[in-house]
Every structure is written in structure tokens, then in C-alpha cells.
């Protein structure tokens, strides 16, 4: 028997590289115990340090490796005990073996030195078995059959950096064959049940996976040709940023050449989405997609967007939207960017989560190329913006790479129409920029305000929108934004919305309103009727997150000749806005008798800074008092203000109370 030991060691070690072999044979003719020590074995795929083999007289043996290094993994120590061990010139057999690392499993193996046949079996409770068979000659092959095998056993062999199995059962077979030049053929036919795995960060994990995988691969020259199928029946997977639930199925075929994993042709059946065909070139080293093509017809847009696209979008209006309808998609990806996209939309729709906008019945055939000019026609059946219904429309979009323009477009809004001119949207660096001009033909304010859920306003809204542009940070209106409202005009200038799509947008600008009809205005806000015309200027207006930071406001009666009347209720409301003391100026004796009063002028000003409104009246009144309404005609009434400084939030609260409660004045 000792004569066979050097032969065995030579046979095994000759596959690796000698570092140093120290062999000590201890024992004597009087004892049947042998102790063999081998210091180091190093091979490309593994290294072992401090190997010792003890053979006992009772036929058992113990193999111990102090340190076994596999790629990315270390084991120390590894100890295998064989209840029955035999070693002859022909073969080595281990029966009733136990590996320290697998205390619940029984291990047995045999190796024939002549035929180089290897058989290794691992069995455990619950009908679990792993059987490896191999013929390790010049033309070698290894195969493995698993039955009800615990996948978690593989976790110990894998690096901590990759997703490692924690639970699940495996059935099926693996086969690897080759010759002296290396592996030439590989096949796998595996079924998993209740599979769970996770990496250390928990960002790549799965639970209760059930399905099957089949792979066939042959060596072709320096690379491999392969074919595979995946049938994922149930279970869930989180592969950051995607969360997927079964069922999905995929068949694919391709090659592996050097660094490139080529998927030449693949079909995937994506649950709830439809069938897609694709090809891809994946760089294994760079872990990146080099090239890809994808095609799918009549895909369900809702699920496609929710499951596959939304997780890539992060925050934003689009990321909080829902899509519907169907799409035909064909895309080409190359050189790190999308090169072409053909998109057919069939009765598609988009709606944002907070009901701010929606578009329905979108149909389009879009043929976009990164470096070619194309034209697309997009039609839609209708939609809504802030509750206001939008009519049907059809737009022609000129596309030239990441440059989109719409020379002329119309959008029906209630009984009016928004005309867009020279809409242009393009990308510079990482920012999207856009600009447009437009006009709004008269829309009924009554219908508009009702639809938007505002106080019911009367009159018509019409306007001219000069150039509006977005430079990646702020939206700016060049020139004057002009609207007709309350039978007067509103001109907005120097309008700028900084941090437009950020957390706290900041709006600044000036407003000049002329000849607003007080009757329409006061009826709208249930303020108590006033008749006449008013001009209002709001200069240096600054809003942050739509709350005023500062402004200089001034209201005054418009120039010209027109009836001027103010109701008892309006007088009371104005005086209550002025705070305690303002009503002291009311000529109370008249109030009880008259419903309406005449006036000569109305004036009010507010300089708002740091939440405090410093008020003034018609002119430069001295001291603490100021005139808000100067009487004129018969019966006449004047309203004085006495408090110059009022907290802005307090003033807003009072105004809300007056307009919302619609309180009747109490006149004594």
C-alpha cells in the first residue's frame, strides 16, 4: 500500500504547480497507521496549504487541509473523514465520508487511477442527493445530477460580493466535457423551487422563485456558441431598481467571444406586457451594454412603463404618471446612446398622479433617428389641464436627434383655443431647454373657473403669450404677457420662475392691471358689490413656493367716467380688513337707511416685506390714518384706515373669512 502513495500524490499534484512538497511517512511495520503531510499545492484555480492525510488501521482515513483557497473564497481548515477508505494502485475509495463543513450530509467518492473515472455523491435527509461523475482522461467529462438538492449549500463556495443563495431546492443535471485544450461542451437542465438569494446590500435579491433553466453551449474556435431558455413561473425578484414578479419566459441564442457576451436572437414573454424580441452585445469586463436592438408589438404601455421604465426615471412629473394603451416599439442602442426609435402608439394615454394633467386617445407613428431629420404626426382625442378639459388635436413634430420643434399647433380649451407658435425643445449638455410663443383666443371665464374649481368668475379670458423660455434652471417670459380678464387687461412683465422644477420654485415679476370691472370682480369673490373700475399694480413681486416674499401693491380707481357705487356689505368688509378702528370713520347714521353709497375714489396700497404689509390709502395721508374710500355723490361714504402695519398672513385670513363666509354686515 505505501508504494501507491507517491503515485497518487504525483497523479493529483501534477495537474497543479509544485511549490514545495514535504512528504513524511510515519509508521512502521509494527503499526498500520500512516501519516502523510504535503505542505503546499498551488494551481491556477486553487491553492491548498498544510495538507495531511491520516490512514488508520481500522480502514478509516482523515484528510485535512489547513487553508484551501478558491477564487474569491478561503476555507480553513477543511477536514474530511472517511469511515471506510481504501487506496490501491488502481483506485481510491472513500465511503461513509463526512465533511466538517457539511455535517448533515454523507459523502462518498471513488477515483480510478487507470480509467480516471471519478464518482462523488453527497446525500442528506429529505431525499437530497448531489452526484458528480467524471472521466478525467485526455478527453474528459464531468456531470452532476441533483435531486431535491439544497441550493444554500453553494453559498459557501461563492464570494460575499455576489448574490448568494439562502434557500431553495434544485433538481436537474449539469454536464461539462473537454479535452487537453480545455472545455468544449457544456449543458445544464435545472429546475428550482422556493429559491431565495440575496447579496450583502439586499439590492439584488429574490424570494420563492420557481422555474427552470436550460443551457447548451459548444466551443466554436476561441469562443462559445450557446442556446438557452428560462421559464420563470412564480416568485419575486428585486434587482435594483427593478422589482419583478413571475411569470416571464425567455429563449435566447448567441455566442461568447472573449469579453463579449453576444445575444444574437432572443424572445422574452414579459408578464402583463407582451412579447419582445431582442439582440445585445454585453461587455463582461466593463459590465456594460455595447449594442442592442429590441422589438415588440402591441405591448401594454401601462405595465411596460410601471415595471420597466418608471424605476429608471427617479423623481419628476413623468415618474408620477400612469400610462395606458398599447405601443409598438423598435429601438436600436449603440455607442452608449439610443440611435433609433420607432414608436407606434395606439389609443395611448398619460395621466399624472395628482390629476394635474391628462391626455387620452393618443395615436402616433414616430420614426426617430439620432442623426436624421424626421417628421412625426401625433393626434390625441382630448385631455385635461388642472381640471380644465382640453379638446382633440393633431400636431406635426419635426425631429432632428434631440431637437424637437412644432412650428404651429392648436389646443382646444373649452370654448377657446390656445395657439402655440414655434415650440422648440432641445438638449444642451445634460439640460433640456425649450421655448414657445402663443395666443389664447377668448375662453369663457365662467366655464374655465368652474372647471378649475376656482371661484366662479365672469367675463372672458384671452391673451397673448410672448416668447416663453426655459434654460435648464428658470422659465422666463420675454416681453409682456397680456390677458383680458374682468373686462380689463392684465399685463405681466419680467416674469421669471427660478428653480422651476425644483423643491421651492421662486417666481418674480411685475403685474399691471387696468380697468378691471369691480362689479365682475366683487361678484366673483363674494365681497359685497362694488361698481366702478379699478387699476392695480403689483411691482417687485416675489413668490417662493407660491407664497409671497415681497411686493409693492397699489389699487386705485381707474381714470374716466363711470358709475361708482359701493354696497353696505362691501363697506363693512373693507373696514374689517383695515382692522379694529377702521369702522370708526363710518357715518353710521346713514348705513341703516341705504343699501348703496356713492364714492369718488378708492385707493389702497401695501408694501409687503418680511410678512408685514405696510398699508396706505388714496394719497399721501399723514400720520396713522389713511383714506381707503373717499365719498362722493349722495349718499356719500368715506372709509378710513387706522392701522398701517398688518401681518400679511393675518390680512389673508381676514380676506378669506370675508369672501368665504359671505357674512352679512351687522349694522346697528
Amino acid at each position, binding site marked *: 500500500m505505501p508504494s501507491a502513495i507517491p503515485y497518487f500524490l504525483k497523479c493529483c499534484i501534477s495537474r497543479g504547480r509544485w511549490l514545495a512538497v514535504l512528504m513524511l511517512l510515519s509508521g512502521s511495520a509494527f503499526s498500520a497507521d500512516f501519516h502523510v503531510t504535503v505542505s503546499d499545492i498551488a494551481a491556477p484555480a486553487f491553492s491548498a496549504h498544510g495538507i495531511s492525510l491520516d490512514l488508520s488501521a481500522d480502514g478509516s482515513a482523515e484528510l485535512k487541509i489547513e487553508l484551501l483557497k478558491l477564487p474569491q473564497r478561503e476555507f480553513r481548515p477543511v477536514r474530511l473523514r472517511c469511515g471506510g477508505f481504501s487506496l490501491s494502485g488502481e483506485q481510491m475509495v472513500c465511503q461513509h465520508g463526512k465533511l466538517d463543513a457539511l455535517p448533515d450530509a454523507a459523502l462518498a467518492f471513488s477515483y480510478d487511477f487507470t480509467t480516471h473515472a471519478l464518482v462523488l455523491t453527497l446525500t442528506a435527509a429529505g431525499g437530497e442527493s448531489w452526484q458528480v461523475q467524471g472521466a478525467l482522461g485526455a478527453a474528459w467529462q464531468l456531470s452532476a445530477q441533483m435531486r431535491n438538492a439544497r441550493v444554500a449549500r453553494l453559498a459557501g463556495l461563492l464570494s460575499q460580493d455576489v448574490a448568494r443563495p439562502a434557500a431553495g431546492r434544485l433538481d436537474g443535471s449539469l454536464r461539462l466535457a473537454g479535452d487537453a485544450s480545455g472545455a468544449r461542451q457544456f449543458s445544464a437542465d435545472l429546475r428550482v423551487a422556493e429559491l431565495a438569494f440575496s447579496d450583502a446590500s439586499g*439590492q439584488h*435579491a429574490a*424570494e420563492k422563485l420557481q422555474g427552470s433553466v436550460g443551457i447548451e453551449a459548444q466551443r466554436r474556435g476561441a469562443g462559445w456558441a450557446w442556446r438557452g431558455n428560462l421559464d420563470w413561473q412564480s416568485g*419575486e425578484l428585486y434587482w435594483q*431598481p427593478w422589482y419583478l414578479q413571475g411569470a416571464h419566459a425567455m429563449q435566447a441564442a448567441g455566442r461568447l467571444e472573449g469579453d463579449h457576451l453576444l445575444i444574437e436572437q432572443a424572445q422574452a414573454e414579459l408578464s402583463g406586457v407582451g412579447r419582445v424580441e431582442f439582440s445585445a452585445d454585453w461587455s463582461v469586463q466593463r459590465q456594460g451594454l455595447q449594442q442592442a436592438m429590441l422589438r415588440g408589438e402591441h405591448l401594454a404601455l401601462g405595465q411596460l412603463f410601471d415595471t420597466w421604465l418608471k424605476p429608471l426615471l*427617479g*423623481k419628476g412629473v413623468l415618474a408620477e404618471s400612469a400610462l395606458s394603451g398599447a405601443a409598438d416599439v423598435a429601438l436600436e442602442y449603440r455607442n452608449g446612446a439610443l440611435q433609433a426609435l420607432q414608436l407606434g402608439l395606439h389609443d395611448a394615454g398619460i395621466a399624472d398622479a395628482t390629476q394635474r394633467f391628462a391626455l387620452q386617445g393618443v395615436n402616433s407613428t414616430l420614426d426617430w433617428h439620432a442623426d436624421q431629420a424626421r417628421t412625426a404626426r401625433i393626434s390625441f382625442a382630448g385631455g385635461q389641464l388642472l381640471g380644465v378639459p382640453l379638446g382633440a388635436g393633431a400636431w406635426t413634430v419635426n425631429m432632428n436627434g434631440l431637437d424637437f420643434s412644432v412650428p404651429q399647433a392648436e389646443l382646444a380649451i373649452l370654448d377657446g383655443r390656445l395657439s402655440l407658435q414655434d415650440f422648440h425643445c432641445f438638449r444642451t449638455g445634460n439640460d433640456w431647454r425649450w421655448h414657445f410663443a402663443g395666443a389664447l383666443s377668448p375662453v369663457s371665464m365662467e366655464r374655465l373657473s368652474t372647471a378649475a374649481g376656482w371661484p366662479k368668475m365672469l367675463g372672458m379670458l384671452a391673451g397673448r403669450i410672448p416668447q416663453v423660455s426655459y434654460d435648464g434652471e428658470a422659465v422666463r417670459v420675454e416681453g409682456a404677457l397680456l390677458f383680458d380678464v374682468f373686462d380689463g387687461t392684465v399685463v405681466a412683465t419680467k416674469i421669471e420662475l427660478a428653480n422651476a422644477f425644483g423643491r421651492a420654485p421662486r417666481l418674480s415679476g411685475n403685474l399691471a392691471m387696468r380697468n378691471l370691472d369691480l362689479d365682475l370682480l366683487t361678484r366673483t369673490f363674494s365681497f359685497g358689490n362694488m361698481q366702478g373700475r379699478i387699476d392695480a399694480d403689483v411691482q417687485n413681486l416675489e413668490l417662493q413656493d407660491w407664497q409671497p416674499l415681497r411686493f409693492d401693491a397699489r389699487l386705485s380707481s381707474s381714470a374716466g367716467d363711470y358709475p361708482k357705487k359701493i354696497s353696505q356689505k362691501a363697506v363693512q368688509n373693507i373696514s374689517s380688513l383695515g382692522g379694529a378702528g377702521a369702522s370708526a370713520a363710518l357715518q353710521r347714521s346713514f348705513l341703516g337707511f341705504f343699501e348703496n353709497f356713492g364714492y369718488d375714489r378708492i385707493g389702497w396700497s401695501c408694501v409687503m416685506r418680511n410678512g408685514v404689509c405696510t398699508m396706505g390709502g388714496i394719497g399721501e395721508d399723514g400720520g396713522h390714518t389713511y383714506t381707503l374710500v373717499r365719498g362722493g355723490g349722495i349718499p356719500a361714504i368715506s372709509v378710513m384706515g387706522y392701522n398701517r402695519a398688518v401681518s400679511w398672513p393675518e390680512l389673508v385670513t381676514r380676506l378669506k373669512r370675508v369672501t368665504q363666509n359671505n357674512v352679512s354686515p351687522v349694522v346697528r
Partner: protein
Amino acid sequence: MRTAALSHLKKLFALFALLSVFNVFAAADLEVNTPGVNAIKASMQARHAQLVPFYNSGAVGIGMDGMVAICSAGAVPLAQRQTVNALVNAENADREALYSEIANANGHPEWHNEIRQTFAQRWIQYARPGWWILTERGWVQK
């Protein structure tokens, strides 16, 4: 001798400059009230209720850099991991915006980092016992 005195003087100036920067920062109003700060705080407050269960379970912890981070994603069911990642990203974006906004409101955008450090200490101080804090030694339970 003269050179040594000059060097000493330089050191004194440097120390003085450092102290005055510190004093100036100490004057920063961290409770400054602007619509921007209010908007961010309101958004963070609304999110806090969603984050609390994840702080409690140890899925999310608090960093010493004034940010929050995933501590143990394994504590979250797979179906909720997208949500918890999104919450952490949104919270950190808000915190970054809050520090900038407070620095801007104080008229000193360059104070951003000091404000962040001060808030970092506050968040840790306000964290409930049992929540996880990311220290130089790794994750530690408060």
C-alpha cells in the same frame, strides 16, 4: 528672530480668522423661516411618517453627514425595497436642499457644510433609542 515673530503673528491671524468664521457661523439662524424652508420642511414632515417604520425596523439609519442611508435592506420585504430606496433618495435630496436654503436665507451660501454638520448632530440627538446611526465604526444602535 524677526522671521519667527512674523510667523507667530501669521499663526495668530490664522487663528483669529478661524475663530471669527466660527463666531460668524454661530450667528447663523437655523430656524430661519422662508417659504422655501417651509416647503422643504413640510415635505420632510410628510415623509417622516413613512420613514419611521423603516427607522424602527433598522432598514434605514441616520448618517453622521446629515443624511439617511439604507442600513439593512434585508429587513424590508422585496416588494417594498423600491419604495424604501425612493424614500431615502427623496429624503436626502430634501435635506441637501434644506441646508442650501438655510445657508442662502442667512445670506451665506458658503455655510452649507457647517449647517449640514449642525443638523447632522441634531438628527442623531433626536433619533429614538433603537434607531441605527452610521458612525466611523460602522452601524451602531442608539
